[in-house]
């Protein structure tokens, strides 16, 4: 398999972007002499980004979804939610920092917001457990979601996890039960729920927050029941076959749309959200607002019925779809 453009050119683009950041800082600090060079580099970078994105493989998207500078939930929450008040704890055991949960305003609309956070620095990653939530994290989200339903306000969920935490501590507190209960109970919340995979949609850890009225994915996010490396290792006993596995798993956003699992793919800055976090955040905000407007005014019973049917008939072969069964 020939080397992907991202593999060949991605590093050059990262280096260009780094130089651009530097120049931008200098120009903003008043060093006008660099503005020509800056404009030139920005143009070259955008061309390179477009070149790379013209031939992205599924594995490329996995790498973009895992890019170390990719914006995370906290970045989007800062960018689009006003007066965010963060809530903590599951009232049973502790607070899971792998999940941010709280209330705030989106363009003046009161919303509940949940976001999985992976962290960037070594210390942050330890604090957030690399975005691998534990039972108390999912239970915290259910507490907030019930409160949002009680108050009649929509719930926005940003999914970004390599998978749920599965170690002894999580087993001892019921990680499977927490994931199962979340999925079951999200079907009974009578407020609009919008779920968006912004990075890694890691299997059970993601679906535990993934029952919604509308499912969205950022352009380069992935959503899968297993990682491509895991799939290659288990099915073909060769983790090096991860690129083939990524393709077979149909884990990209366009794949999920075609499979009828998600409703919308949200565009990122060319080359990945990390190249244009504000622009991508604006796209994300726009998509969420548009989705909330679509869901506005639907009666509670209608909302719950269509949410149930959405998942009831996903992936059904021809002839087994919604024929009025429910």
């Amino acid at each position: 398999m020939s080397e992907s453009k991202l593999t060949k050119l991605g590093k050059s683009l990262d280096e260009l972007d780094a130089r651009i950041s530097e120049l931008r800082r200098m120009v903003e600090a008043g060093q006008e002499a660099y503005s020509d060079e800056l404009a030139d580099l920005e143009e070259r970078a955008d061309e390179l980004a477009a070149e790379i994105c013209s031939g992205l493989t599924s594995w490329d998207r996995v790498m973009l979804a895992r890019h170390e500078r990719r914006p995370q939930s906290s970045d989007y929450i800062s960018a689009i939610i006003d007066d965010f008040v963060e809530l903590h704890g599951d009232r049973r055991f502790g607070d899971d920092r792998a999940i941010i949960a709280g209330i705030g305003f989106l363009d003046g609309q009161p919303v509940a917001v949940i976001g999985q956070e992976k962290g960037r620095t070594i210390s942050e990653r330890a604090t957030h457990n690399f975005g691998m939530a534990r039972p108390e994290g999912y239970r915290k989200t259910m507490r907030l979601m019930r409160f949002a339903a009680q108050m009649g306000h929509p719930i926005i969920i940003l999914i970004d996890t390599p998978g749920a935490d599965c170690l002894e501590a999580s087993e001892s507190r019921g990680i499977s039960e927490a994931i199962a209960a979340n999925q079951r109970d999200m079907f009974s919340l009578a407020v609009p729920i919008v779920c968006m995979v912004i990075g890694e949609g890691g299997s059970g850890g993601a679906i535990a927050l993934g029952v919604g009225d509308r499912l969205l994915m950022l352009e380069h996010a992935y959503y899968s029941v297993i990682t491509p490396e895991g799939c290659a290792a288990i099915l073909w006993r060769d983790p090096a076959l991860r690129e083939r596995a990524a393709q077979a798993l149909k884990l990209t956003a366009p794949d999920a749309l075609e499979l009828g699992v998600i409703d919308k793919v949200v565009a990122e800055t060319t080359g990945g959200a990390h190249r244009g976090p504000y622009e991508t955040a604006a796209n994300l905000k726009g998509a969420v607002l548009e989705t909330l407007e679509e869901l506005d005014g639907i009666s509670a019973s209608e909302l719950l019925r269509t949410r149930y049917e959405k998942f009831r008939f996903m992936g059904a072969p021809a002839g087994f779809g919604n024929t009025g069964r429910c």
Partner: protein
Amino acid sequence: MTSADEKKAPASDSYGEVPPDLWQTCPACNQLLYSPDLEADLWVCSKCGHHLRLTVWQRLQVTADPDSFEEWDGELPLNDPLHFPEYLPKARANQESTGMTEAVLTGRASIDGIAFGVGIMDLSFIGGSMGWVVGERVTRLMERAIAERLPVVIFCASGGARMQESLIALMQMAKTSGAAGTLAQASLPYVSVLTDPTYGGVLASFAFLGDIIIAEQGAAMGFAGPRVVEVTGLRMPKGIQTAEFQYEHGMVDMLLSRRQIRPTLHTILRWCTA
């Protein structure tokens, strides 16, 4: 439909009249066990107490009234939503070799005349993994139980969600979890029995949503399946992914030997339907 008896029917071979599967070895202690005695012991080793894994028909035999089982939704077609390489041939080969159509058998059965909707999973069919057919059968089981006002009992055994159906398999977790919620809303009970082994996407969806959860003695269970643990190099200490561990941490209602399951289910069903 192939019955347990038919599957055990011995073929006469070059050694004369002794059928090849008259004796079985206990996978735990290597004791040679005489098949008819083993069957009378509900496929529990008389030497060490190891509970051997059961086929769906063996599970029916040790649980339900004879001839009480009526299959539902046996006709659902194999589904390959991703057109995953090698998947359909593998599924068809599994159908041939196991006699099952998919990893779960669903329908109606009774214990001492009390009817209930039943689901039984079996690891022999693609590792007991859940894809669309398993999710659909489990969901239809619950829907029909609501229509016919039946309690539901599901014997779970699974390696997890089916990789070859990826996102569609993942969505079955949500679908079956939602269905379990509708049973409760309809004031019907759901008993889940966790058997050896139950992992991953099945454990983290309908398996852990029983109103009453029974763990069968010796069953292995955990969120991360053993192959996932193996390929990610996770350190999973012994004793964590066990029924005993779940019971000690308050996650399951009871830990029962195989012999205790039928009478206990009967009492629960009597209580629920009184």
